């Protein structure tokens, strides 16, 4: 059996690792391949493969032999001419691709769930967010009828005020979400929003809206209204009940939180 030429082996190995990365991202992680991470990985992979391939003088010579041949073998004259013309052009093209002015929007990173403050001042009161609880939550066990009534009232609040953005399916796709699309209205059916949050966090976010966010949350960009301007404290607690009731999620509770930290 003929041995695979060293050069082909090197190129093949690097290509195989690249293919593996792409496959893992697309088929297993279901994520877009992050270009910068990929560049870094591939740089290391290339270095390692080259190190291995040139570990002793013989194999190093074997590796560059075909390249040497390309430069001086008379029978490779045509190929040589082609490579010598294409290589500088490729260098030009690849560099231009980097220096070329791109007119894409600047990258803006915003923290979706910034750390809440310890307390919040609204409705002329100060609420301690560490201990704040939904006054209706206990009724779920003690007085189911009153609880259902509160959920129903929360639904009315939601359909009068929130569904334009957050959607009547609570999926963040209300009929105004096409205009308020950066940041997008939260999708409450997603496991990444209310399912992870405490009711006190929601109270803070709903009462103070976009402008109540700390700077890392980009308060200037969020169209989420300041609901203390339009709703009562009672209505906010009820609409929170509705969000959990409709989606079937349970709010995260304080005890669990304490246990974690």
């Amino acid at each position, binding site marked *: 059996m003929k041995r695979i030429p060293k050069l082909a082996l090197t190129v093949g190995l690097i290509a195989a690792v690249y293919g593996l990365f792409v496959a893992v991202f697309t088929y297993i992680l279901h994520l877009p391949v992050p270009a910068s991470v990929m560049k870094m990985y591939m740089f290391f992979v290339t270095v390692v493969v080259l190190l291995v391939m040139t570990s002793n003088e013989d194999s190093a010579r074997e590796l560059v032999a075909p390249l*040497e041949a390309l*430069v*001086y073998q008379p029978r490779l004259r045509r190929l040589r001419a082609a490579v*010598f013309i294409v*290589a*500088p*052009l490729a*260098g*030009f*093209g*690849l*560099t*231009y691709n*980097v*220096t*070329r*002015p791109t*007119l*894409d*929007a*600047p990258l*803006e*990173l915003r923290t979706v769930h910034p750390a809440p403050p310890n307390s919040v001042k609204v409705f002329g009161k100060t609420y301690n967010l560490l201990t704040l609880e939904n006054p209706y939550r206990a009724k779920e066990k003690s007085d189911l009828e009153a609880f259902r009534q509160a959920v129903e009232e929360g*639904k*009315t609040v*939601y*359909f*009068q005020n929130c*569904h*334009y*953005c957050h*959607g*009547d*399916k609570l999926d963040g*796709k*209300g*009929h*105004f979400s*096409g*205009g*308020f*699309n*950066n940041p997008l209205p939260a999708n409450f059916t997603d496991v990444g929003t209310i399912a992870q949050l405490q009711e006190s966090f929601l109270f803070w976010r709903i009462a103070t809206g976009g*402008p109540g966010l700390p*700077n890392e949350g*980009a*308060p*200037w*960009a969020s*169209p989420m*209204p*300041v609901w203390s*301007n339009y709703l009562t404290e009672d209505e906010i607690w009820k609409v929170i009940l509705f969000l959990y009731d*409709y989606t079937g999620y349970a709010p995260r509770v304080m005890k669990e939180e304490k246990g974690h930290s």
Partner: protein
Amino acid sequence: MMLSNAPLAQALMALFILAAASPASAQQALTPERAAKGKAVYEKRCAGCHGLTGQGDGPAADRLRPRPRDFKTAFYKFGDTVFGKLPLDAAIFRAVAEGLPGSSMPGWKDVLREEEIWDVVAYIKEFSRKFARLKERGEKLEPLEIGTAPKLTETDVQEGKELFLKNCEKCHGKAGRGSGPSAVALKHDLGDRIWPRNLTKGWTYRNGNSIENIYRTAAGGITGTPMPSHLESLQPAQVWKIAGYVDTIVQRERPKTSEVIIGKPIEGAPPAGPDDARGAEAAATLIPLVGQIIEGERWFTPTLDSVQVRALYDSKMIYLLVEWDDPSASPLAEPNDKFPVNEPDAFAVQLPVTIPAGMEKPYFLGGGQNSPVILWKWTNGGAVETLSSTGILKAEPFAGPAASALSANATYVDGQWRALFTRPLAGGGDGDLTIETGKYIPIAFSAWDGNNGEKAEQRAISIWYWLLLEPPTPLTVYLWPAIIGLLIAGGELWLVRKTNQHAHKKE
């Protein structure tokens, strides 16, 4: 309980047998059991808009236009039957599954199974006695015949255009943008104000925008609205020609929105006005507009849904060309007595006072207490002004020493406003923006449809976008690639020489 109502039960039985016997496989038997199952789905998913009693009066209803359908009167708009008739079950199913684009009615097939959709269709039909009565009389609904679209020649389409101008223009307007003379005075049969569709925006058609769909709407009309059936006055062949013409003016897909409005450098004569062909040299960006439902008196029912923006600049000035469809140029010369509101149309461009260095910007809605913005505001029949604003409720005439000279020139043609804002790049002084090339500048827009009663904070708004005046490409962009290319070529020559020497030595 249901079965004690004998005629209804009979009717439903008849319906059951009919439906079961019908060869259309998708057609489901809408039994009372089905309807009973549909109740739970309805109360969870639909009642917020359509109301618990199905009368289109859920908590959201007063803030939606068009209003959610009232299932009791059963004026279904898209029933696949002719004007005034009840809808086919399959048409109701389609509306529920696919939704009605351009309205707040979403499609439900992503959260409801097909079975559940049939259940809820059975349930909403029970809100109206009309379906049962139809059965009692033993009548069957006649679907509107569409057949297949005939091949249309250019002459046919031309003829279609003339027929359109005769039959449709009074509502839909000359260019189909919904700006006909009757457009400002149309009412739904249940009393709400409604507007004719802007036929150029295919993505807002409720019932599909293929040529067959257009034929079906034009032929059958839209029950409960002033849009009549055209089958009494026209031959089907003529309606096909009209549909063929509408087919040439409809843009089916909504254009993609870009976050950056790229301003083109121009040389020579600047655009003289909003209709100057030079405007078209810059690429257009379509920016969505939605109701201002965040501060002050909220505005849930805007008529304007987007604005198209282009930017040009030369060494001294910036030219911002904005175009938006509006069903009327208000204030109207003769206000109509059905809807006497008659505020002026207006448009505003919002910019920061200084170009932000980092990520932080002024609050997108009219700026904030410590982060003012400026507005360039044009009002139909009024002044063009620069305003300082520290909040949407706090816009005042420019506060600094002097705002840079702003002018705006607008025309209204067949349902479309086009306005050209012109201003020196240099700001007038303290608190006025100086526009620099190559910098990303936050920009946002507001539009008011006066005939819809919009004024002050009650308006259509956008979030922040970016304005970027494309800088002339610097030489370094080519320099580095050239250096790299030459280095590679040099390296090659060196290699060749080196190897040749090597070969010589060996010999």
